[in-house]
């Protein structure tokens, strides 16, 4: 039983040292662990706080790749880096590529752009003529922890939020909608749903003249 699970048991009135219902084993603690994992996933995605690096082994004459995350699950790509030419790839989209050149799928050469379709398909343009490695930095939904010693990488205030999320679901499972709603409101306040994504909050807004948009690789 990790610290978060103990905190949840404290708040719901269980005896942490000798729990009656949520016993200290994988089966007994599973409902609490499920709720905490759900909270960690949601917080990680909403804040974009958990990032991983995937290496895409792009093959000759192939543009589309389906990614199956075996541990952390891919949410979206934040950056793509082409190793052999030591440069970033530009983000684009299928619609933009078609507008730029209807025959974009036939282009070959060193990749310039990447795009994502849905949650698990990544494409690069143009398709390489030989195998290349593209490093993808991605926001992920972290692997659900399943042991007491598994690391939980969250800020402290978000750990408190995850605890309230789990307590809320406990009360919902007991039929007490009022207590459940109360704890869920605390979760929303601690996560700060109104001002999410710390990178956006760190931006400095300034005035500038109206410049023409710069040309990009794909128009």
């Amino acid at each position, binding site marked *: 039983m990790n610290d978060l699970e103990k905190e949840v048991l404290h708040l719901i009135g269980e005896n942490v040292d000798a729990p009656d219902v949520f016993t200290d084993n994988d089966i007994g603690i599973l409902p609490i662990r499920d709720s905490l994992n759900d909270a960690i996933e949601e917080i990680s995605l909403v804040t974009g706080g958990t990032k991983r690096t995937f290496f895409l082994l792009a093959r000759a004459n*192939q543009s589309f790749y389906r990614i199956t995350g075996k541990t952390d699950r891919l949410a979206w790509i934040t950056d793509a880096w082409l190793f052999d030419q030591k440069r970033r790839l*530009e983000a684009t989209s299928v619609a933009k590529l078609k507008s*730029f050149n209807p025959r974009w799928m036939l282009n070959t050469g060193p990749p310039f752009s990447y795009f994502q379709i849905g949650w698990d398909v990544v494409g690069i343009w143009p398709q390489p003529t030989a195998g290349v490695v593209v490093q993808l930095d991605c926001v992920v939904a972290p692997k659900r922890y399943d042991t007491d010693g598994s690391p939980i990488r969250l800020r402290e205030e978000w750990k408190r939020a995850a605890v309230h999320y789990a307590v809320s679901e406990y009360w919902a499972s007991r039929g007490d909608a*009022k207590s459940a709603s109360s704890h869920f409101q605390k979760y929303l306040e601690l996560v700060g749903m109104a001002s999410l994504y710390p990178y956006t909050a760190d931006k400095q807004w300034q005035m500038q003249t109206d410049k023409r948009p710069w040309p990009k690789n794909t128009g």
Partner: protein
Amino acid sequence: MKWVESKRRIRRFLRDPEGKIWDDRLLSLLWNDSQQEINLRSAQLETVAVIAVPPRYGCSYMHDWEYEYAAAFGKPYQCWRQHHAAGMSCSHVWETQPAWGVDSGAALTDLGMVFMHPWEAWYSVGDVQDLVPLPLPEDFGQAQFVAYDKDAIDATTYKDLQSRDESYRTRTGEVQYWFRIDETSNEFYLYPRNSTAEWDDVSGAGQILYDDSGDTDSVDYGVIGDWPPDLGDMDIGAVFDALDADGNVLMVYKKNPTNISGGGDEVLDWPDFLTKYVEFGVLERSYEANTDGRIESLRDYWSMRRQVGEKVLRLLKTKKLVDRNFVMTTHSHVGSRNRQHPRLPDTYPAAR
């Protein structure tokens, strides 16, 4: 995630582990309803599929009554032509003469080649008189991008095609458009029909569903998944598979979530980290349903959770766009192209 796992989580919150109030069938119906609503509001599911040309089916049948038996063998195809006025199927139209009382001696003119299965159209030595259908993916919602043999093609309508080309049925050449005849048949057509087809490496004869030279990702509509040889068996990191679009139709589309029938091993369409939002919708509907377990306060709680979940889903879509990186270049950078169509000479007569 599989349905059995999601059902376990739902039953925890319903406090009905034995299914005495909400049985499995009801939960699967509510799941199908909830996921359709979530997808409609948040448009989360997109995918890309490769549709083999010639198309591949599991089996074929002639009459409508055979469908329920054919579906067990995979995606079925209704072969031959259907003469619905007489409730019969036929290959050549002159076969329908007896239904109209026409003397069999007064034979109709043979109307050229016909095919029983679509792949035969590319073996034909003459003009094929019918449009050759290709199957849309079962979960097809709305197309976003379609390409044939890696060349983008545009959507058109059947009406527009008939207006522009008298010989649209027999026209062959470089594929430029795709179209659907109706919304219910789940088929689409290429125009002009490609005059040659690439036959993938298969063994056996006739319509082959499996490509035995590699792994097949899905048999329903010919998606070919080619696993990297070293990573395919590893249970770590991320496994990639490439989609081969050579000589096939590649389609990027918004997908409709697949209805589950209640089998425990059914894999849900949603990524693991998004299934909980559909579960909230199921719980809301469960507590709303007119059963012994109806509790309005819990219905309202799960309704609140569902609505917050929908807002989170929309927020995630925004985050995907915010986080993109662009590369700045100069005006003289080669690669910028503003015109999509070839430029005509100035002396070319203007369109009237």
